[in-house]
């Protein structure tokens, strides 16, 4: 008996696939079962094929698997697309009365249900997917009554009649299968529990984390798969005194966010693909004006328009190095849906503690995947807010120079300057993308340039020491095989450990949510016989970074005064360097 059930509904875009899938997922969640969902958007074959897949178990599920047990197929293509995942015991629910002749592979169980006719009996053909859900309940031995609550949730706004019709549709589907098929015991353990779970995806977790963190302003431009963050916030953030604005493009979105952030609002923008390219124009300004802000990149397949509805972790270099010139930034990449929530909150705190933009890097897979969690996983009482060196009317006085001018970019020991926002008396100051002095006034003076560059870099050193940049660990800590991953691969890796254990392969998994600054993995890698870095991209961007971290240290000579190297000066520097110790890290 399989511990988990893999169910899917597929058809054409516009067939209501998503909402039907969601209704079933919610019903399973209400029944105290764990759920992990995924979506197929487009396909290898061109056309509008789309599917919503659910993996469910009483135990936690954090990954998709290559197995499909029950498929509701609204089109032949749905069957063809999933042949690899279907197996001998799979059941396929289809509507034999519809014009296409379903070709059900012999080894599989075809369940022909007149979805459309039964839906019409219940009040309208539009409910045919709900009939299929009822049929699926009967096949799996899952009580059809569990659908009621999610039908109420979905259709409650449309009136009780609609809700009742849908409930009836589900029952007609269930009864039809009961009467016409002897499905017997297919062996799915559909045990229920009293556990209360919430069901949400990564983008919803990011949006919820933003509100929890006190984010009040969001500007964005629609782009898959980031849009759903904006859609989540719209209608909710207003309840907390915030606002969402749809900008005319990403150039505007990041600049609006910058304006709001400089005015003291916790502010965020999110984008993907081409949008992050456009935002890179302004990124340097955000960082050099030392503006705290969260920039979320929900990665999708690139380059250019790439495969907009497909998964990729291809923007790591962009987040780390994007933009001309050199400027520190933090890069945080949540490794799970709960972490999407917590890391968003952390990103806002990091941004304000260090007056630095934070890239929050998520990806398409995590953005569309819904997973069940106990509500305590999002314990709002545990949320902490740290606004860093935000000064008020009194504190501002400590930061005025002898002529009463606010030192917005004061070259402090820890590199972090005070932050005053409009309305703070005596805090008025200028900020600019030009190199500037402590007061924010443009300068090209070599000494001040160096002072400001060093100051900005010092913030990172301070953050490295003050904050915890820990990795998450799974599997056997003493295993000789080390697998390192970043971002959303964590769930699949954790489940892969079970398969590996069956094969007798001993593995330690390190899942890294911090890309910059990041934990130093030198010791871990040296302790391992083999190290593998797992990531959803072709070139291994994180692997490059990890390899870089464990390389032999070289000594460095750097100059950033704005003046080129001179021969005599270089000779002298080289001589001095040769007498110095190689830096440890």
């Amino acid at each position, binding site marked *: 008996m399989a511990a988990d059930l893999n169910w899917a509904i597929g058809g054409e875009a516009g067939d209501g696939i998503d909402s039907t899938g969601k209704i079933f997922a919610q019903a399973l969640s209400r029944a105290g079962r764990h759920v992990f969902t995924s979506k197929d958007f487009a396909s290898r074959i061109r056309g509008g094929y789309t599917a919503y897949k659910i993996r469910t178990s009483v135990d936690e599920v954090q990954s998709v698997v290559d197995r499909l047990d029950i498929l509701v197929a609204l089109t032949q293509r749905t069957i063809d697309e999933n042949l690899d995942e279907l197996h001998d015991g799979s059941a396929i629910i289809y509507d034999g009365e519809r014009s296409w002749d379903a070709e059900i592979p012999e080894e599989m169980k075809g369940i022909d249900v007149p979805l459309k006719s039964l839906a019409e009996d219940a009040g309208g053909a539009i409910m045919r997917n709900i009939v299929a859900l009822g049929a699926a309940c009967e096949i799996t031995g899952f009580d059809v009554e569990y659908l009621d609550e999610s039908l109420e949730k979905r259709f409650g706004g449309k009136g009780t009649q609609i809700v009742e019709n849908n409930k009836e549709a589900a029952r007609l589907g269930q009864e039809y299968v009961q009467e016409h098929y002897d499905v017997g015991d297919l062996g799915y353990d559909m045990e229920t529990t009293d556990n209360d779970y919430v069901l949400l995806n990564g983008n919803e977790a990011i949006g919820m984390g933003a509100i929890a963190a006190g984010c009040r302003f969001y500007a964005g431009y629609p782009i898959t798969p980031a849009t759903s963050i904006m859609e989540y916030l719209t209608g*909710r953030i207003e309840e907390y005194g915030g606002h969402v*604005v749809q900008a*005319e493009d990403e150039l505007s979105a990041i600049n609006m966010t*910058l304006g*709001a952030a400089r005015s003291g609002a916790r502010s965020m923008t999110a984008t993907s693909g081409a949008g992050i390219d456009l935002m890179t124009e302004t990124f340097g300004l955000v960082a050099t004006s030392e503006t705290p802000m969260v920039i979320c990149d929900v990665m999708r397949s690139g380059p250019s328009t790439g495969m907009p509805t497909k998964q990729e972790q291809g923007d790591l270099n962009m987040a780390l190095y994007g933009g001309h010139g050199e400027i520190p930034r933090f890069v945080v990449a949540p490794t799970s849906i709960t972490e999407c929530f917590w890391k968003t909150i952390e990103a806002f705190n990091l941004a304000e503690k260090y007056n630095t933009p934070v890239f929050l890097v998520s990806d398409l897979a995590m953005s569309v995947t819904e997973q069940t969690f106990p*509500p305590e996983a999002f314990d*709002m009482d545990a949320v902490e807010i740290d606004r860093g060196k935000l000064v008020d009317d009194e504190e501002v006085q400590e930061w005025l120079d002898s002529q009463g001018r606010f030192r917005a970019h004061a070259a402090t020991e820890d590199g972090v300057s005070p932050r005053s926002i*409009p309305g703070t008396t005596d805090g008025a100051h200028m900020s600019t993308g030009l190199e500037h002095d402590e007061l924010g006034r443009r300068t090209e003076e070599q000494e001040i340039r160096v002072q400001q560059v060093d100051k900005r870099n010092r913030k990172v050193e301070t953050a490295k020491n003050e904050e915890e940049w820990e990795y998450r660990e799974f599997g056997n800590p003493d295993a000789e095989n080390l697998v390192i991953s970043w971002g959303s691969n964590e769930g699949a890796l954790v489940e892969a450990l079970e398969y590996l254990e069956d094969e007798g392969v001993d593995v330690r998994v390190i899942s890294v949510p911090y890309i910059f600054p990041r934990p130093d993995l030198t010791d871990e890698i040296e302790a391992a016989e083999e190290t593998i870095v797992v990531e959803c991209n072709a070139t291994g961007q994180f692997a490059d970074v990890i390899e870089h971290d464990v390389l032999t240290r070289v000594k460095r000579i750097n100059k950033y005064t704005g003046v080129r190297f001179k021969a005599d000066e270089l000779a002298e520097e080289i001589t001095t360097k040769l007498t110095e110790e190689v830096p440890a890290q």
Partner: protein
Amino acid sequence: MSSDVRFTDFKSDKQPTWCPGCGDFGTMNGMMKALAETGNDPDNTFVVAGIGCSGKIGTYMHSYALHGVHGRALPVGQGVKMARPDIEVMVAGGDGDGYSIGAGHFVHAVRRNVDMTYVVMDNRIYGLTKGQASPTSRSDFETSTTPEGPKQPPVNPLALALASGASFVAQSFASDALRHQEIVQKAIEHDGFGFVNVFSPCVTFNDVDTYDYFRDSLVDLQEDEDHDPNDYEAAKEVILDSEKEYQGVMYQNENSVPYNEQHGVTEDMSEIPDGAPEDAMDLVREFY
């Protein structure tokens, strides 16, 4: 601070490095006076400056200010005002900044009608990059990159604004100090997006759109008693008149409802609680 604010409070201690005689001196003076006259003070004012000779204004004025990326000043200003309805926002930049690289933002800023002021220091040239054609340059204006002139009609920024649904469209001349200040003041006082295109001559790179040219050709709408800025048709006529150069308020929509009011964005967003909002657990429960 309040009534005792003088316009010099808006002056920073950086000496302007504009060429002697540059129109931007007059444009900036008028802006500072208008800000002081309308009861603002530097600690409650946010100036966003574009990139260009004009954009240096952010350095020469004293207030909360951001000197940002070329062409992106308007979005920054809108972000400030949405987050802080209590703050006076003024955006200033050049004709290249506003009508070329930032033209897309201009159209949408006008449409959004955020309660702020946008002053374009229009010298019909790229000053900072030393004299190339700008979107408002005449079609036969010879420059280093357009030796025979751009051979394209100049943008009519006032018409562009009107076509985008502007609620306030005005034009002034940097050297007519009183009128310029008066017009900017009206833009500040306007409930919505107050747009002023200011003729701000570049004495170094533009030898056609000079002080003398504007002095000789400008028609002041104030002296034309018949012009009623609330009359859309009259505004259209003046704005589309390519024969003459005008100064004054061409158009003002009396029924303008600014963005923040339209969208109920009235709170100071800088203040947040020490932890998650009190009822934040409701957000989690939504996912049951």
